[in-house]
C-alpha cells in the first residue's frame, strides 16, 4: 500500500488546494499510475507501444492526453492481459446495460484509497457518528463495497435488507426501514421512485416508513433538480443527495448545495472528450473518460465509460475546490433524433416542468421515426391537462422537429433502470 505521504495528511485538506497545486499532484499520480500499468499490465504496454507511446513520459497533462483511450470491448477482449489474479481478491461485475458485463477486481490498497472519498461524500450528506445507515449490498457495486467501511469509520452502524434492488424487493426494504429506523439511507433512484409510486397508490405510508431518515443518498440515475426536490418532499426526508460513479473508478457526490456532484479528485482523474478524443470545454457535453488514481486493483487508464457528461463552468460556492461534473446518461439511455443525441435526462427536465408529471416514469422510444426527426416519449399514467404544452416545450428545448407523447395509462412495465425501450415492446409499430 502506498504511504500517506502521497495523499493529504488531513482528510479533506486537498479540497482546499489551489488548482495549480492539485494539477501538479494529479500529474504525479498519473505518472505513477502509467508506470504501474506499463510494468504490470501487458494490455497497456502493448497498446501504448503500438500507438507510439511506448516509452513516453508524463511530464504534462498534454502528454497524458496522448495516451490512447480504451473501451470496454478492448478490455473484455484483452482478458488476462488486462486483468489477472494479482489484481485483488474481490471481483465485481458491471451491470452490462451496454451488452456484456465487465468483470473488474478490487484490492485492499485500492479500497483504502476509495473509502476516504466515500466518508467525505457521506459527511456532505449529513452523516454523523452513531447514526445507522441502511445500505446497498457491498457485493452489488465496487463503490458500495466502500460504503460500509466508510459508515463504520464515521462511527456509525450499518444495516442491510434482504433481497436485491428490483421493485419486487420493496417489501423487504420497507420492513427493514420500519424495524431498524435508520437515519441515513443509500439506494437507487429507480427504487425510490417505485416506492413513491407505491405510496401514491395507497400501498405504503411513505412518511411513516421514512420517519427516522434524515438523508437519502441516491445512485443509479442522474437526478434532475426537480426530481431531487420531489423525492425529498414525497419521502418526507431532510434531504436527497446524488451519488454518482462508475465501477471503473469515477466517484462523485453532491455537496450540500446540490449544484452538481463534485468529482472526488483525490481518487480519479476525469476527462470529457469529443468524438475524436479531444477535450471539450466545461459546460459542453462529451464522453466521460476515467483514470483511476490508485495504482492497484484492475487498472483503468483513459477508459471511455460510455457516459455522456459535462464539467461545470464555475467553482462551487461550497468552498470545495473539486470540479463538478454531471453524468447525463449513456448511449443506451439516449436516442438519436435526426442528428441530435437526446438523453432521457434532457427529456425528463422538460417533462417535469409540468408539476403534475413529476415522479412519473418517462421512457424514450427507439423506433424508425427517430431518424426523420420525431422524438417519441412514453409517459406513465394518464394524459395530463397540459399535454400539448409539454410537446411544444420539448420541441423547443431539445431542438427536434416533432415530439410525440404516448400516455401509457396503467400499462405495467418493469421500469428498473431502463430509460429507453424499443417501441415494439409496448406494442408500438415500428414505423
Amino acid at each position, binding site marked *: 500500500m502506498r504511504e500517506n505521504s502521497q495523499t493529504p495528511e488531513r482528510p479533506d485538506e486537498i479540497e482546499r488546494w489551489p488548482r495549480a497545486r492539485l494539477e501538479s499532484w494529479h500529474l504525479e499520480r498519473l505518472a505513477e499510475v502509467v508506470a504501474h500499468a506499463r510494468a504490470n499490465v501487458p494490455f497497456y504496454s502493448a497498446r501504448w507501444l503500438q500507438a507510439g507511446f511506448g516509452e513516453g513520459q508524463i511530464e504534462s497533462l498534454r502528454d497524458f492526453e496522448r495516451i490512447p483511450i480504451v473501451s470496454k470491448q478492448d478490455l473484455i477482449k484483452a482478458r488476462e492481459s488486462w486483468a489477472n489474479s494479482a489484481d485483488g481478491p*474481490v471481483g465485481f461485475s458491471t451491470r452490462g446495460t451496454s451488452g456484456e458485463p465487465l468483470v473488474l477486481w478490487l484490492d485492499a490498497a485500492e479500497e483504502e484509497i476509495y473509502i476516504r472519498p466515500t466518508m467525505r461524500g457521506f459527511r456532505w450528506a449529513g452523516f454523523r457518528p452513531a447514526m445507522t445507515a441502511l445500505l446497498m449490498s457491498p457485493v452489488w457495486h465496487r463503490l458500495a463495497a466502500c460504503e460500509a467501511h466508510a459508515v463504520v469509520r464515521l462511527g456509525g452502524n450499518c444495516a442491510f435488507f434482504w433481497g436485491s434492488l428490483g421493485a419486487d424487493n420493496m417489501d423487504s426494504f420497507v420492513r427493514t426501514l420500519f424495524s*431498524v429506523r435508520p437515519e441515513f439511507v443509500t439506494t437507487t433512484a429507480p427504487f425510490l421512485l417505485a416506492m413513491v409510486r407505491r405510496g401514491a397508490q395507497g400501498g405504503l405510508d411513505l412518511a411513516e416508513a421514512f420517519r427516522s431518515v434524515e438523508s437519502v443518498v441516491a445512485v443509479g440515475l442522474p437526478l434532475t433538480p426537480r426530481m431531487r426536490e420531489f423525492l425529498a418532499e414525497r419521502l418526507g426526508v431532510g434531504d436527497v443527495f446524488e451519488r454518482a460513479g462508475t465501477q471503473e473508478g469515477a466517484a462523485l457526490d453532491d455537496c450540500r448545495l446540490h449544484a452538481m456532484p463534485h468529482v472526488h479528485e483525490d481518487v480519479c482523474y476525469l476527462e470529457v472528450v469529443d468524438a475524436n478524443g479531444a477535450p471539450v470545454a466545461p459546460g459542453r457535453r462529451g464522453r466521460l473518460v476515467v483514470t483511476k488514481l490508485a495504482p492497484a486493483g484492475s487498472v483503468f487508464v483513459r477508459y471511455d465509460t460510455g457516459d455522456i457528461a459535462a464539467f461545470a463552468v464555475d467553482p462551487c460556492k461550497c468552498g470545495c475546490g473539486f470540479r463538478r461534473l454531471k453524468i447525463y446518461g449513456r448511449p443506451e439511455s439516449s436516442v438519436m433524433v435526426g442528428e441530435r443525441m437526446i438523453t432521457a435526462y434532457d427529456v425528463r427536465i422538460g417533462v417535469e416542468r409540468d408539476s403534475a408529471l413529476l415522479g412519473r416514469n418517462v421512457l424514450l422510444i427507439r423506433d424508425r421515426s427517430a431518424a426523420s426527426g420525431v422524438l417519441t416519449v412514453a409517459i406513465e399514467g394518464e394524459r395530463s391537462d397540459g399535454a400539448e404544452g409539454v410537446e411544444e416545450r420539448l420541441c423547443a428545448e431539445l431542438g427536434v422537429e416533432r415530439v410525440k407523447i404516448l400516455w401509457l395509462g396503467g400499462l405495467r412495465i418493469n421500469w428498473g433502470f431502463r430509460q429507453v425501450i424499443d417501441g415494439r415492446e409496448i406494442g408500438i409499430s415500428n414505423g
Partner: protein
Amino acid sequence: MPAAETRLIFDVPNGRLVFQPGALDAWAEHLAWCYELMGVKRGATIAVQDFGGSPLSFLGSALLMPGLVRGVAERLGGRFIGLDASAERVTLTPAVLEQIPVDVLVVRADVAALLAAEIRHKGRSGTGKPPARTVIAFNDEDPPPMRGSGAPWRYLLHVPSSMLMAPQCGTCGYFHLRAGVYRLDGVQVSNLGYQGAPSWRLPQSWTRTPEGCALGLDDSTISPAAWTQAVEQG
C-alpha cells in the same frame, strides 16, 4: 478497528443477524471450512449468486465488511465475486463465466434452474477452461437435494436466520454439522457460536446418518432419507 459498540445488522428471511464487527471472523473461518470440506481447493475463485445480505456473500472477503479481518477469499488464498441473485443479474452470469476462470459457482436454490437455463442458452465457449463446479445453496423451504445425473457438484445447507451452514462432504457425501459450532439434540440443531440464533429443526424427511466421517470425527452428519449414492470425488 471499528468501535466495540458498532453493529452490523442483516435482515434475513424469518429473522435478523446482528454482529459486532469482531464477530465476523469466526463465521468466515467456518464458511471457509465448509468450502474445504466440500472439496474446494486453496486458491479457488468462488462466485456466489446470492443476495448481498446473505452470509455467503458478505463473508466472501475482508474488503466487503468492516471489522472482518480475513474473509473467505483471504482464508482460502483465492478470489471471490458476488453476483447477486436478482433475475436481472442471473442473465449476466454466463458472460461473467466467459470472462473469468470461476472454479466454484455457488447458487441459491431458487435461481438455480433459471441460471442453468441461461448457461445452456448462452453457452460457455472459447475459454478452454473446465466449467465451474456448481454448489447449490438451499434451505429447508427448498425442495430436497437431488442425486444422480444432472445433480450439482455439491450442496450447501444454508439457513441464514439460524446462521446454519452445513456443507455436503466431498468424502462421505453427507451434510456435516461441525462439532463445536452446532449441536444436534434429537431433531434440533442449536448454534453454539451465535448467541440467540433460533435452533433449526431437521425436516421430517431428513435423518441423522450413523457412521462418522474421517473429515470430522466429532461432527454429526445428516442427510435426506434414502441418500445413498456416492458423491462425485475430486
